[in-house]
């Protein structure tokens, strides 16, 4: 009486719906010390940019009530070394791979898409548009329907083929369904909801912002109610669009909450910092919970909270 626990995002198939969240699992190497990466639905890699990035100065993080702020600043090796080292290693492991990309201009996104278009073994592309747009006074792409859709359109034009494009949205907007609409029109096959919320912690001893960059992204259980709301709203507006949900999931109950709201898959971020085995525990608990509620297929549970009772 076991359930069909697989899921698919716009044609890409995953054996189970639990993914890592971008930036919270590196490229999978360290987590593979704790469990085989093949037991994840997919590894979503840390957002990669065109060139190597040092990231921001420390302090880069501050713990907050039921959450944390980070301002890593997308530290990473750049797309070329990433393709040379990380992708082959992940392929060797037999992991399902979703590559997350990030740019500072529309052209950056185009270049990254072209670099990835012929790479074998990638299941989908996640496009992190919660990045400052250097061409537009540093305004974050995801905060404006025009810049959000421009970035996605650039990827769409250059990616070619069948690779699904997942647009990752920021919750720091007045109306997330407007942004969702713009990126879907621009060719996004799916959405990732949500990225971190902009927050700040002030150190009351030094009496200055705790992070070197002053603000950082808030993640963890604190933001789960925002994630559930965003997923629910977008699902209500777009009944069919595949959604990868994330935001404060620490156990199977939390993951189930996002699934009921509309998530076709659930990414685990901050929880991994507290517990390297978090994704595995959550996977097992979610499967049991779906079974306990009488679902024979995971996909039947997706968006179930939207049902209209007769």
């Amino acid at each position, binding site marked *: 009486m076991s359930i069909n626990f697989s899921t698919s995002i716009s044609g890409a198939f995953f054996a189970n719906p639990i993914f890592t969240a971008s930036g919270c699992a590196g490229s999978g*190497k360290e*987590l593979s010390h704790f469990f085989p990466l093949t037991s994840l639905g997919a590894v979503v890699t840390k957002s990669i940019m065109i060139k190597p990035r*040092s990231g921001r100065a*420390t302090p880069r993080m501050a713990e907050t009530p039921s959450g944390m702020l980070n301002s890593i600043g997308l*530290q990473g090796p750049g797309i070329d070394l990433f393709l040379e080292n990380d992708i082959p290693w992940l392929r060797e492991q037999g992991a399902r791979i979703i590559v997350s990309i990030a740019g500072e201009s529309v052209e950056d996104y185009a270049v990254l898409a072209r670099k990835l278009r012929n790479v074998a073994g990638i299941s989908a592309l996640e496009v992190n548009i919660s990045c400052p747009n250097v061409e537009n006074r540093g305004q974050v792409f995801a905060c404006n329907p025009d810049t959000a859709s421009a970035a996605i359109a650039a990827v769409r034009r250059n990616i070619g083929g069948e690779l699904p494009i997942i647009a990752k949205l920021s919750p720091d907007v007045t109306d997330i369904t407007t942004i969702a609409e713009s990126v879907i029109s621009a060719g996004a096959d799916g959405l990732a909801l949500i990225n971190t919320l902009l927050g700040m912690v002030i150190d009351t001893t030094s009496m200055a912002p705790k992070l070197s960059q002053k603000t950082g992204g808030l993640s963890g259980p604190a933001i789960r109610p925002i994630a559930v709301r965003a997923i629910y709203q977008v699902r209500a507006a777009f009944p069919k669009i595949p959604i990868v949900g994330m935001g404060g999931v620490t156990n199977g109950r939390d993951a189930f909450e996002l699934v009921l709201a509309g998530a076709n898959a659930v990414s685990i971020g901050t929880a991994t910092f507290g517990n390297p085995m978090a994704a595995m525990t959550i996977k097992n608990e979610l499967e049991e919970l779906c079974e306990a509620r009488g679902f024979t297929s995971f996909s039947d549970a997706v968006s179930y909270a939207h049902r209209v009772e007769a």
Partner: protein
Amino acid sequence: MAEIGGQMINARAVQLSAEIISNKKVGAYHHMVFAVGEVAANCRPGNFVAISVGGASSSLVLRRAFAIYRASLRSDGMGLLELVIAPQGSGSKWLVAQEPGDRVDLIAPLGTAFGIPKEPINALLVGGGYGSAPLFSLAETLKARGCRVDMVLGASTAGKIYAPLEGKRSVNSLTITTDDGSAGIAGRVSDVLPNLIAEHEVDVIYSCGPMAMLEAITLISQKADVLHQCSVEESMACGIGVCMTCVLPVEGDDGVIRMTRSCVEGPVMDGNKVLWNKSREIPDGVWGK
């Protein structure tokens, strides 16, 4: 040449539920002992552990890192891990409030260890506050290799010097400094280092303590032209290398300066390779700036 290179998480790291065996207040600190089974045999001086804090409905989402004070596998198979904890904020205060019989979720061993020379050299161990914790087991190891081991411990005040009797036995000499002069020499460890280096013909300094102290020691070691292995303490969110919060600008063997994870490529690092004075910025020349 990938930025995050060959260095992997400590190959022996294991996540386990560890029972607290004892918890005793010693001066400003708590000495806590955990039952960890065979893992104890895999812990090296300099390694650290990462512990979940706050209990079931905790608002604290991140682990806390603690240097291993001592690890021993008894003949009856009981593996013990000892830590020295300073109650500071909410996580450490929660931990020291736990009682024997309680269990904590613990990952050990993590990070790099102090390098142990093959030859019998003259070592100077320098600790600040609870930074003395990993130095006593290091002292024993060095002694067993025939090294001369001198030690300097510094703190703001006497109660914050952690130097248990059995620990003192394993060193040739112990110098204590306190800012307020309540024990040993009034002053800082850096005040006494140059003389001790000369006096004991020191080959290597091993250090652990606040970052400002490590920076000061680095300057002294460079001047005196001795090696300097230090255990750094950067804020860590994950402790296992996945979050990138714990970085420092460090010069690699290839001469390239990278923002380097102190949980995987540290906490023990070559002090002379760390760009201390730039540790709160991204210095020019860092790879990817």
